[in-house]
């Protein structure tokens, strides 16, 4: 039985995709901020990839200085509001909160963070302004968390910045990939507007950089180029039947969902292939779109899934069921998907092997492949001297983000291989400093 009716209006969609971390009101923020112990050398700060001074901003909220709190957050992380809502806080700051060791509920750091940032975004209160122009300019490719964060920091340092983005909106996967129950499009874009209003970088949307010629133009015009291109499309499975109608990649499915909400169709019986966080998201999202049955199919055992436990719990909570130790062999059906032929597997000494003769067909009318995002290998080949590692990740200096082509710098998914918004934001801020160090030589 489906847990959710198929949403047909924006209101129904919003109800099915209700925010997991809704905005706090003043009283809630006061109560929650009052609980923070103001730990010395706080473990929550260390667990935050962007190193936000959490006890400091919580104390600022508590004393009624929300503006100061927002400044503390943004000084460390330009995606402060988005991160408060979309970060996997259970395994980051909140997971490190000392209260866990006392079996007391950890401080709701994420929600407090978004409480403070929402205040300044809504009031439009300026916290930053561009630095005095230094006469140099940087091109940023990609307006995701990495690209926008780099743009902000570079503007603060006095650079002229042009951001080139293939899509029509900024924030990358924050608005095209993250689950809608984590953050709304409006919230995401409001933060983007807020940042742009303060830092004044130029954005060029619907402007993919795809050729050597375009890159050469940039190389000639700008003093440095920042790559914040993220990852690519969903990896192909290489299975027969993969191009049948209603067999789609998770990233593509979610991008549609984020843009068209209830207007996109989901199958009645959906099979999601994969065991990572994106698989959990796609499964949850299918259920919330009204699919009657959603099955997560994973090659190994439940314990071996890459997804965070809380993400799996979230999927289970909306009625998703798990099918473990099965490998897909073929997508069956005529033009349309009709099922997946699986073979059972077993894991012996960490190695997965198929059990001969255990094949079966699991019927369904939609398949979502959450089998990882491909790297932007082709695009990266266009940059002379730029090395990628064995996994297709850009090779760059850990502290400065400089790639093996000294004019190019990189951060975010394209460099780390796929992490979270917070990692991209933190890395890009540092890399902007790296660019500054390089161009100040």
């Amino acid at each position, binding site marked *: 039985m489906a847990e959710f009716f198929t949403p047909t209006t924006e209101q129904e969609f919003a109800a099915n995709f209700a925010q997991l971390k809704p905005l706090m009101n003043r009283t809630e923020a006061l109560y929650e901020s009052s609980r923070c112990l103001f*730990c010395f050398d706080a473990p929550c700060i260390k667990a935050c990839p962007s190193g936000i001074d959490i006890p400091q901003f919580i104390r600022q909220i508590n004393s009624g200085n929300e503006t100061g709190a927002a400044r503390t957050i943004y*000084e*460390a992380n330009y995606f402060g509001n988005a991160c408060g809502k979309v970060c996997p806080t259970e395994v980051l700051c909140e997971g490190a909160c000392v209260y866990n060791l006392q079996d007391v509920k950890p401080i709701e750091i994420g929600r407090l963070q978004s409480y403070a940032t929402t205040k300044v975004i809504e009031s439009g209160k300026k916290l930053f302004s561009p630095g005095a122009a230094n006469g140099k300019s940087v091109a940023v490719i990609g307006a995701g968390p990495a690209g926008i964060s780099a743009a902000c920091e570079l503007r603060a340092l006095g650079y002229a910045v042009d951001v080139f983005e293939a899509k029509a909106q900024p924030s990358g996967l924050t608005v095209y990939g993250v689950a809608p129950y984590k953050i709304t499009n409006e919230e995401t874009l409001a933060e983007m507007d807020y940042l742009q209003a303060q830092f004044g970088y130029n954005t060029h949307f619907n402007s993919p950089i795809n050729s050597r010629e375009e890159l050469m133009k940039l190389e000639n015009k700008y003093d440095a180029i920042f790559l914040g291109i993220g990852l690519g499309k969903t990896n192909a499975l290489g299975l027969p039947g993969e191009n049948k109608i209603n067999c789609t990649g998770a990233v593509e499915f979610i991008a549609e969902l984020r843009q068209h909400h209830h207007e996109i169709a989901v199958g009645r019986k959906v099979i999601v292939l994969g065991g990572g966080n994106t698989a959990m998201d796609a499964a949850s999202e299918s259920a919330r779109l009204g699919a009657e049955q959603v099955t997560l199919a994973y090659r190994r055992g439940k314990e071996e899934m890459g997804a965070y436990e809380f993400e799996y719990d979230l999927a289970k909570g909306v009625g998703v069921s798990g099918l473990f130790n099965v490998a897909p062999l073929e997508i069956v059906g005529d033009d349309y998907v009709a099922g997946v032929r699986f073979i059972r597997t077993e894991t012996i000494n960490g190695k997965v092997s198929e059990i001969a003769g255990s094949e079966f067909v699991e019927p369904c009318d939609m398949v979502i492949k959450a089998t990882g995002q491909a790297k932007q290998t082709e695009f990266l080949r266009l940059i002379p001297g730029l090395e990628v590692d064995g996994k297709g990740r850009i090779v760059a200096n850990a502290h400065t983000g400089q790639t093996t082509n000294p004019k190019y710098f990189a951060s975010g998914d394209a460099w780390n291989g796929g992490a979270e918004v917070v990692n991209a934001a933190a890395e890009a*801020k540092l890399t902007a*400093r790296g660019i500054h160090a390089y161009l100040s030589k």
Partner: protein
Amino acid sequence: MPDLSINFAGIKSPNPFWLASAPPTNSGYQIMKAFDAGWGGAVWKTLGVPVVNVSSRYGGVNYRDKRLVGFNNIELISDRPLADNLREIEEVKKRFPNHAVIASLMVQSRQEWHDIVRQSQDAGADGFELNFGCPHGMCERGMGSAVGQEPKILQMIVEWVMEVATKPVIVKLTPNISDITEPALAARRGGADAISLINTIQSIVGVDIDQFAPYPIVDGKGSNGGYCGPAVKPIALNMVKNCAQHPDIKLPISGIGGIENWRDAVEHILLGASSVQVCTAAMHFGFGIIREMTSGLEQYMVDKGFSTIYDFVGKALPNVLPWEQLNMKYKVMANIHAEKCIGCQLCYTACEDGAHQAIRLNAGTRVPEIIEENCVGCNLCSLVCPVEDCITMDRTDSGTEHITWKERVAAGTAPTEFNDERAGGRHHWVPEPSAALGKERHKTLPGKARVYAGDLGL
């Protein structure tokens, strides 16, 4: 079942819990409701020539998310006609003959005092409380704390009252004075039967930082008010103790100030009070709090084997000594119970910055370690630790030696010179001042910069 009843200087009450003279005792309606709920007595809102109050009267002190840890008011005495109050006193006494109804009084001339005492007596009041405490409004008219701060005038007024009073007279003392025993002694000399303390403490409870005016705000202005509520209990307890220990006062004490639950009441009683009065807690939570107070007191008495209140009135007094009589050989040391520690390191930063640099952090663990040679046994770390019983202060001396400051002075072993070898901190290790510089600077950097601060030379 223990007996909670008291006989306070001749005023009988089924339990020691009285409502203090304040808004909760403004009317017969409220007092009947309170008695119905279980209160033992009530001191009527102060009677006198009825006043006119301003609008916006109270201010609060909130601590983080806790409301009204302190409370202040700029209200005056009763604004109701005396006749109405007296009629209602009579009505309450008829309905509740065994409960204590005490008339709080504040007037000016001898004649007025005589008149109001006689009329309250006729109305059936069980006793009087002379309000020499109000620290605002009334004192500017030569009443309230203006009297409480002048022992001679206080004594004279008590004498006037004693000329006509046939019921016990309690003198309510103001804490707005440096030595509370002076007015208490004056009350005794004037012939009073008991004292009650404390009234409110002159205060400004806070300032509106946008309007630049003190709370509570009356048309953009404010005035000093009277402070009470949980925050004032420590001041009240000390004053109660001072009066209870004074060899010449020897009057029953009604303890007032910051009483909100049975535990607060027991503390007042252990320091010498034999009835307690409550105002702020009743204004905050209503009369219903009495159920917790009586049941808690009863349970405490059962647990301790006390059969009446008098079994423990002043029981802590022998243990309150002047500082110079404390045993200087007694030593405690902080002991961190690692299995309970949650690694907040509040103890570390408290001792490091606020005490004696006697706690160190070690690599690889968040559990701090006590540097035994440096711990002076001040308690600070155990007070800031958020985990119950995680830092205990354990006794380290043999328990066989005893010497006080007084004895050391007498024996000539107390430090007397600026650089005396016998000073307490003489052999105490203190880090070099310059070792402090930059020690925690990386913590002031924004974001990830703190991690790479060294590498990038930020």
